[in-house]
């Protein structure tokens, strides 16, 4: 296991380095003069600003030099400065990562809480009304894009019913939850929770739909397995047959499935954050593209790449830990 981890981390580093290379070479990739393009998104740039930028982006330097200086910068914690917002890109992004992570994790929580039981029920009650409902949900989940779900939710809950705010952010939900438990006062928590509900639900929608389907198939397959009959033949009661044998075995592919969704979930934040003006890295990324704020774009891409790579490793390792067939493969 340790060997595997080391190998994965190393190959991940290689990927990151490639990304750094592409990102640092951005000035070469952009057609035309990159600084002129930036001016279009940032009116009021002086000649001096432009010179600084040319220096920063390595316009007149060979690729290798820009690459190395960018790399060095990373080690020093310097990812460049945002032209538009005139502050450190690393800081700007760092401020927003928690909001995005919270959104993604809340969405994951919603997705699991709904998809797991629903998927299992659909499998156990195959062919009934519930199953049919689950199928429809799956089709909708694939066909209805997240941003549309978001807009519809806003329409229903903000415009018509006026129960929830359509934009805004009042701080970390996790922190508020922790404080609420300590002080046993849930008012602040609810105040903050109101803002995350719709974004998380929109993000979760597609994921729920796919997961219901996949959990259902997994469970169906497991139900057919011979080892369930074996358990029955040994005198194990039916309920235990399902809980200890069927469910546990279904858990393994389910974790994989869910793990694979995490990437989609994180990717979805790039869109959903823009529907709800959620102050996370997704929103910043899109804004930076509009502003042609290349230093900020570079930093965004790099951080995003690191997040995804890290996520992949996490999921991989978890999967290997819970499946004894893999864990003990070399005993």
């Amino acid at each position, binding site marked *: 296991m340790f060997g595997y981890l080391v190998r994965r981390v190393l190959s991940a580093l290689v990927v990151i380095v490639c990304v750094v290379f592409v990102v640092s070479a951005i000035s070469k*990739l952009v057609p035309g003069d990159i600084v002129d393009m930036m001016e279009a998104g940032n009116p009021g740039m002086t000649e001096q600003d432009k010179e600084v930028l040319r220096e920063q982006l390595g316009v007149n330097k060979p690729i290798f030099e820009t690459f190395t200086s960018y790399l060095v910068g990373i080690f020093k914690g310097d990812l460049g400065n945002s032209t538009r917002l005139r502050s450190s890109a690393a800081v700007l992004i760092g401020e927003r990562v928690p909001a995005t992570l919270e959104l993604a994790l809340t969405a994951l929580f919603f997705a699991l809480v709904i998809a797991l039981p629903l998927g299992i029920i659909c499998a156990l009650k195959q062919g009934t009304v519930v199953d049919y409902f689950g199928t429809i949900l799956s089709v909708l989940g694939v066909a209805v894009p*997240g941003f549309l779900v978001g*807009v519809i939710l806003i329409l229903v809950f903000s415009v018509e019913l006026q129960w929830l705010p359509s934009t805004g952010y009042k701080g970390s939900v996790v922190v508020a939850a922790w404080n609420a438990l300590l002080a046993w006062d849930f008012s602040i928590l609810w105040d903050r929770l109101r803002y995350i509900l719709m974004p998380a639900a929109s993000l979760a929608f597609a994921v729920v739909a796919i997961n219901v389907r996949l959990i259902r198939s997994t469970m169906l397959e497991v139900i057919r397995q011979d080892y369930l009959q074996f358990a029955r033949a040994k005198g194990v009661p039916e309920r235990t047959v399902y809980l200890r044998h069927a469910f546990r075995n279904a858990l393994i592919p389910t974790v994989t499935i869910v793990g694979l969704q995490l990437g989609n979930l*994180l990717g979805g934040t*790039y*869109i959903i954050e823009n529907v709800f003006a959620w102050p996370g890295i997704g929103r910043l990324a899109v804004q930076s*593209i*509009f502003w042609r704020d290349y230093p900020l774009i570079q930093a965004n*891409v790099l951080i995003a790449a690191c997040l*995804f790579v890290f996520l992949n490793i996490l999921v991989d390792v978890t999967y290997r830990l819970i499946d004894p067939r893999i864990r003990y493969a070399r005993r």
Partner: protein
Amino acid sequence: MTTIETTESLDPPVSAAQRFLSELIRSPKGLTGFVLIVLVLLVALLAPLLAPHDPAQQVLGARFQPPAFAEDGEWSRVLGGDNLGRDIFSRVLYGSQTSIMVALLVVFNAMITGSILGAISGYFGGIVDAAIMRVADFQLSFPFILVALLLLAIVGPGFWTMVFALSVALWVSFARLVRGETLKIRELEYIQAAKSIGVGHAAIIFGHVIPNVLPTIIVLATLDIAAVVLYEAAISFLGLGTQPPTPSWGMMISEGRNYLYENYWMALGPGIAIMTTSIAINLFGDFLRDTYDPRQERL
């Protein structure tokens, strides 16, 4: 142990078209999908005839005009007017052209590029294969949206950049598919035989590999078309794709989001259009997969 003789009946051969039609009629989801797709295609083709108004024409008096079935509405503007007084219904109709065109362009690109690269990769193996697959794997470690955003960031937002970005994001699945098939076929005896009598590489690829993998490619392409319709909408929603005044459903939803209080049909109209189109293509794609490639049961 006993051996039992069996006699099996042989079905009379049916043409591909006949088989397709008979399967289609028997599948409710396939039929629904197919009919809806035809509907959407017709709308896209006939938009100039079907649309009551010019989609770009701004009429001050019609700003936020309610839809026909509400009070103050008119039947000439079925879904009402948007924030600039343009007829929502006409814009929705014209929007279909954008979606269809982008989807077809992108999938066509990705299919051709991906298949060729996949075939080359599988057929020649070695360094070429390794190189192509490395790039593919690298690209796959990131979700599609990130790749698209990066490309859009570099070249700047716009319609053609979006097409390019989406094509780049999509080629990998075709490449892998064709590569896999090529690898399988490459080792078959009759291919070795063909090679030994001097049949050229291209002939083998086009004559043997492609026909075998064609059904799977078509299923993949169909499902990808559905995906691209949604991706185009998402990117245009963000403002990074189709630019005004070209109507795009995604962009319309984005604008509509800001005016939900005034006339929510600005967002709902294109929303329903996207849903219908996407569901239709998904249903039809599902049907295709069930009929032509049942071993790929993914959903």
